[in-house]
C-alpha cells in the first residue's frame, strides 16, 4: 500500500493531459477487411466520439507485432497531415506506454494532438502464440533455449510463473476461475462483447486443459479488431464533446531484472511480476494509492495475469490474492470491479486497448450497456448488474467513478500502467 504520497505537487505532468476520444470497430472472428481498414474505421469512430476533425490531429502512434498497417498510409487515408508519427513493436503493455510517449511528444513541441491505434486480424491472419505460418519459421540462436522445448505460446511461456504462484500463494484453481466468472458477468452486460455467456467456476474447471495450470477458459479470446484513443493537452481537451479522462500517471514497460521473455526466470521470486516494480512509479506519480481506485483494468490474457498484477500493485496484502479475486470485490456490485467490459477473457483481444476504452467510458458515466437512452441521447443507467443482457436495463456502469487504473501486461517481467481521473 502506498503511503505518504504528496498529492499537491504537479509532478511528472500529472493531470496536464487527457484522453478525449475513443473508438473501436466491431469485434469479430472474421473481419473480412485489412488492418488498414480496421485502423481507419476505429480512428474515425474515435474522431466522431471526440468531435474532432482531421485537421486538428497532427500526431499518430501505433503498436504491433508486424501484423498491422503503420501510421503513414492510415493518416493519408484520413487526410491527416502528421507533424509526428512513430510505430512501435509490441503487444500487451503498449497502450499505457504509448499514452506516456504521446504526452512526451506533445510536451516536447513535436505535435499537439495524437491518435493511438492498434489494428489486428488476431484470429484470421496472425494469431498469437506462433501458430500457423509462424510455426514454420526457423528457430535460431537464443530461441533454442526455449521454443525448441515446445515452449511457444503466451500460455506456455507464462505457465511456470503461474504454477509457481499457485505453489507460493496457495492459489487454487477455483479462486482463479472466479476471475472468469466476474469478467463473463460483465461481458453479459456488454452488447459488443464477443462472448456474452455467464460462466461458472465449474465451467472453467471442466474446460479442457491447454497448458497446466491453464484450462481453456482461463485463456482469453482471439479476435479481429481495430481500436483507437486520442490524447491531447488538458487545455485543449475541453474544446471537444466529452468529459475528458485526465491522465494522472503512466508507467511504460517497467521490467523485472533479467527481463528477456523467458530468461527472467533466473531472478526470483519467479511468482513475482513486474508490477512489483511498477507500483513504485505509478502510485507516487499519480498521487493516489490502489485503495483509492474505483475500478481496475488488470490485463486478462489469462485469469492469472489479472490476479498476479492486482497483488503486486498492492490491491491486497502479499499472499492474499486468492481471496481478493474470489470474494466478490472484482465483480460489478463489489468494491472495485475489474474489467467491466468483459476484458480479454470475454469481450475482445486488443492487446490492452479495450480496457482503457472501457475505463474512459466509466469515467464519463456513459458505458454502452443495455440501459435505455432518453430523447436527448443520454443513457439512463439502472445499476442493475444481476439481470443478464440482452434484457433492457442490464447495466455495467459503476456509480460515481472518479479514479481508474489500467494495469498492462506484456509478460511476467514487463508491466505498464495508467491512472486516470474524471476531468
Amino acid at each position, binding site marked *: 500500500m502506498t503511503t505518504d504520497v504528496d498529492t499537491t505537487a504537479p509532478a511528472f505532468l500529472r493531470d496536464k493531459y487527457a484522453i478525449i476520444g475513443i473508438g473501436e470497430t466491431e469485434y469479430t472472428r472474421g473481419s473480412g477487411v485489412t488492418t488498414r481498414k480496421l485502423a481507419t474505421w476505429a480512428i474515425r469512430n474515435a474522431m466522431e466520439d471526440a468531435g474532432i476533425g482531421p485537421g486538428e490531429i497532427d500526431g499518430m502512434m501505433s503498436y504491433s507485432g508486424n501484423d498491422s498497417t503503420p501510421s503513414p498510409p492510415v493518416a493519408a487515408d484520413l487526410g491527416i497531415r502528421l507533424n509526428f508519427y512513430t510505430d512501435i513493436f509490441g503487444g500487451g503493455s503498449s497502450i499505457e506506454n504509448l499514452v506516456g510517449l504521446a504526452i512526451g511528444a506533445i510536451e516536447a513541441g513535436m505535435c499537439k494532438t495524437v491518435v493511438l491505434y492498434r489494428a489486428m486480424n488476431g484470429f484470421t491472419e496472425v494469431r498469437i502464440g506462433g501458430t500457423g505460418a509462424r510455426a514454420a519459421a526457423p528457430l535460431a540462436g537464443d530461441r533454442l533455449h526455449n521454443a525448441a522445448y515446445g515452449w511457444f505460446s503466451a500460455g*506456455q511461456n507464462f505457465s511456470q510463473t503461474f504454477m509457481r504462484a*499457485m*505453489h507460493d500463494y496457495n492459489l487454487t484453481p477455483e479462486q482463479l476461475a472466479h476471475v472468469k466468472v466476474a469478467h463473463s458477468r460483465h461481458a453479459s452486460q456488454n452488447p459488443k462483447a464477443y462472448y456474452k455467456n455467464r460462466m461458472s467456476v465449474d465451467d472453467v474447471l471442466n474446460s479442457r486443459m*491447454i497448458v497446466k495450470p491453464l484450462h481453456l477458459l482461463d485463456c482469453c479470446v482471439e479476435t479481429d479488431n481495430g481500436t483507437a484513443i486520442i490524447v491531447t493537452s488538458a487545455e485543449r481537451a475541453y474544446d471537444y464533446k466529452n468529459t475528458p479522462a485526465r491522465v494522472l500517471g503512466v508507467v511504460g514497460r517497467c521490467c523485472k531484472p533479467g527481463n528477456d521473455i523467458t530468461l527472467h526466470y*533466473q531472478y526470483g521470486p519467479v511468482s513475482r511480476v513486474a508490477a512489483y516494480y511498477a507500483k513504485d512509479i505509478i502510485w507516487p506519480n499519480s498521487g493516489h494509492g490502489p485503495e483509492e481506485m474505483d475500478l481496475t483494468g488488470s490485463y486478462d490474457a489469462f485469469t492469472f495475469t489479472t490476479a498476479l498484477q492486482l497483488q503486486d500493485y498492492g490491491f491486497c496484502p502479499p499472499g492474499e490474492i486468492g481471496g481478493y479475486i474470489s470474494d466478490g470485490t472484482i465483480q460489478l456490485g463489489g468494491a472495485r470491479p475489474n474489467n467491466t467490459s468483459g476484458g480479454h477473457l470475454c469481450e475482445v483481444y486488443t492487446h490492452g486497448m479495450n480496457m482503457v476504452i472501457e475505463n474512459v467510458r466509466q469515467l464519463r458515466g456513459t458505458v454502452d450497456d443495455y440501459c435505455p437512452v432518453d430523447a436527448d441521447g443520454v443513457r439512463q443507467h439502472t445499476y442493475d448488474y444481476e439481470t443478464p443482457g440482452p434484457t433492457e436495463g442490464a447495466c455495467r456502469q459503476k456509480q460515481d467513478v472518479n479514479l481508474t487504473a489500467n494495469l498492462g501486461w506484456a509478460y511476467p517481467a514487463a508491466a505498464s500502467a495508467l491512472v486516470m481521473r474524471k476531468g
Partner: protein
Amino acid sequence: MPVEGEYFGMNLRINDNDGDNLTYFQHCADHDFHLQKCNACSLLVYPPRTACPWCAAADFDWVPVEGKGAVHSYGEVHHAIQPQLQEKTPYQILIVDLDTQLGEPEPEIALRVTGNTATPDGDLAPPDVVAKVGIGTRMRMVFKDVAPGLSLPMWTIDEDADQPEPWRYPQD
C-alpha cells in the same frame, strides 16, 4: 557454416555469427555441459550472454558444470502448437534450479536451466513419468542429439537421489 537440424518439425539453427550459442551447443553435443564463467566476478551465467549480468564485464571462460538440480516450476502442455508435438502430449517444460551457485549472488537467484521432462535417453517422457514430476523433484541432465554440433539439454528423474514428495498442480 551455420549449424542446422530438424526436431519435431522445427527447423533449429545457430548462425555462424552466434559464437556463444555455437560453443554452448557444441559442449551439449559432446554431452559435457558447460557455462560461461565471468573472469571479473567469477559468477556463472545461463544461458549464453554477451556480458555479465552481475558486473557488466564481457570476458568469459567456458567451464564444466554439473547437471543436477531440483524442479523450481513447470508447465505441462496438453494442447501443443507444433503438429508433430501433439502426439507427445502431455509434455512438461521445466525450469530447474542447478545445485551449483544456488542462491548466489542473492537468495532468490539461481541458474535455472530449461528443458523437457525426458527419459534417460533424452526423449520426451511418457505420461506416467510426467505424472511423477513436480516442484522439488530431483533431476539430472541428459542430452537429445539433434544434429552435429547441436544437442538439447533435457531433464530426467535422478534415480540415485533422495526424492522429496513433489508439489503438483492441485487438480492432479
